[in-house]
């Protein structure tokens, strides 16, 4: 603080000059804000245009930013290409299994670290925090061998288990933070009025936690939807959508790649829109 005080001017600049500077300052902030926003949004607009342009337009050069005609040929071609629909449904189902298992296991654990002080709690929490920052690459490779032994190699279950291992630490931390934000007094009050702990949880804590848990579920689903590496290592003939696209990437034409990029992005954008109110809470707490 002392260093700051010494740099303070002896007398402020005249008022008009100061307000002008304030306006310029404001203008600079807005300019920076708009430039960064364009950097984020413009590429999304471009892949959208690329996906709905005809093939002539895709190979045309230079391009115009407003497409002369809108066509769904590329997206249709992508959907009709061998294996894409199957891979899409596999991705969706793997995501759903991951959500169910990760939250099914993670929610009780999250509740435990939020509500109980028990021996080993801090050690358990530390391990969860450590696994969250762990390279998933190292798990996928031996998993492929194990899954061969137990006969679920190259299946949705193989990928779902790997994705659950990836998502579980997040599920535990996020659900834990959701329960921390619900006053425990409410459950205690229900218990003094004769509810069993289980009933107090179901009737009081769970309904209040539901929006947060839903956000956690969506977040978990998108972790699974976005994974490429584990799915590419663990599948051969039954890939998820990203793994399917990756494996054919070098052989696929540009219009296929653009349609693929667009189809992959749509759920991601929807997810962010749906959980936008919870993002700060989710991430703000995941890092504590």
């Amino acid at each position, binding site marked *: 603080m002392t260093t700051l005080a010494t740099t303070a001017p002896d007398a402020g600049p005249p008022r008009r000059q100061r307000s002008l500077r304030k306006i310029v300052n404001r203008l600079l902030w807005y300019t920076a804000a708009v430039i960064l926003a364009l950097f984020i949004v413009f590429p999304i607009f471009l892949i959208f245009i690329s996906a709905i342009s005809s093939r002539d337009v895709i190979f045309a050069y230079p391009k115009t930013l407003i497409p002369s005609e809108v066509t769904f040929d590329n997206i249709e071609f992508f959907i009709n290409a061998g294996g894409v629909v199957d891979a899409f449904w596999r991705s969706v189902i793997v995501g759903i299994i991951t959500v169910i298992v990760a939250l099914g296991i993670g929610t009780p654990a999250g509740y435990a670290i939020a509500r109980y002080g028990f021996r080993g709690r801090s050690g358990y929490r530390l391990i969860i925090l450590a696994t969250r920052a762990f390279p998933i690459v190292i798990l996928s490779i031996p998993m492929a061998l194990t899954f061969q032994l137990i006969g679920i190699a190259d299946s949705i279950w193989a990928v779902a288990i790997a994705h659950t291992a990836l998502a*579980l630490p997040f599920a535990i931390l996020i659900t834990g933070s959701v329960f921390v934000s619900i006053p425990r007094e409410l459950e205690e009050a229900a218990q003094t009025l004769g509810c069993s702990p289980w009933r107090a949880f179901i009737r009081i804590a769970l309904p209040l936690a539901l929006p947060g848990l839903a956000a956690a579920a969506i977040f978990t689903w998108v972790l699974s939807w976005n994974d490429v590496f584990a799915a590419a290592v663990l599948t051969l003939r039954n890939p998820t959508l990203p793994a399917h696209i990756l494996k054919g990437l*070098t052989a696929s034409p540009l219009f296929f790649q653009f349609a693929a990029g667009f189809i992959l992005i749509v759920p991601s954008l929807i997810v*962010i829109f749906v959980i936008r109110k919870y993002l700060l809470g989710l991430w703000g707490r995941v890092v504590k």
Partner: protein
Amino acid sequence: MTKRRNLAPYLLVTPSVIFLLLFFALPMFQSFQLAFQDAAGNWTLSTFERMVASPNFHRAVQVTVTLLVLIIPIQFALAMAMALIVNARLRGSGLWLYVYVLPLAISELAAGLVWVAIFQQRGWLNSILQGLGLIETGIIWQSAESFGTLIGIVLVTEAWRATSIIMIVLVAGLQSIPDEYTEAAEVYGATLWQRVRRVILPMLRPALQVALILRVVLAIQVFATVIALAGSALTTLSAQAWVASSSTQDDNLAAAYAFVILALSIVSIIGILWLLPVREEHQV
């Protein structure tokens, strides 16, 4: 009654402990065996010798480390700028946050494909540059001959895709700093840079530390973005692990690559903890 209450938390965490033992600890141990044992089960470093002897290993280390060292400062600078803008109480501050966070759920592969549309020779970047009269013919951004350009386009793509995760951590951290601190600094005439340097960064330290660790570990595993943009012209440690495991069915080699990734992650985390120790006094 008291006994049951004591047991409850253990019952609640047991499923997660079992799952993590089976599908986290066990694969870790198996990876270790794969990397450090031969087919007969003898301890050996021969897999690592084989790995280090391959030119692909050197290319993968070079690309992974170059990307890591360059992308982290870029992303933190961008994320800090975004977080300050979100926190600057401009009109529609909710909208700015929403826009900046859009790429958060976009996958590496999808981001790579988006930027292929921009960087391909007949793509949007060349179209725009030519439209502005800056170039005569399209530049080949994805040229296999130019290491620097390829690294550059991967950096832009990664900056676009993975800055939002850091930004949101910084925004959450900024909101926990009481306004009085930055206002006091402003009253004393501190410039924006001085405020960031002397007030905001020290108070953000815990958030910065965790964001750095999460981002660095993910950056070390960079994979699909590079494959989408550069094909086989660039390769990374993860890409080599994937090739070894899928194409050549050499799980020992794949596990060895995975261990290099793990070792690099651990060294980086120790480095971060050493450079940015979080002391109690900094915590708000």
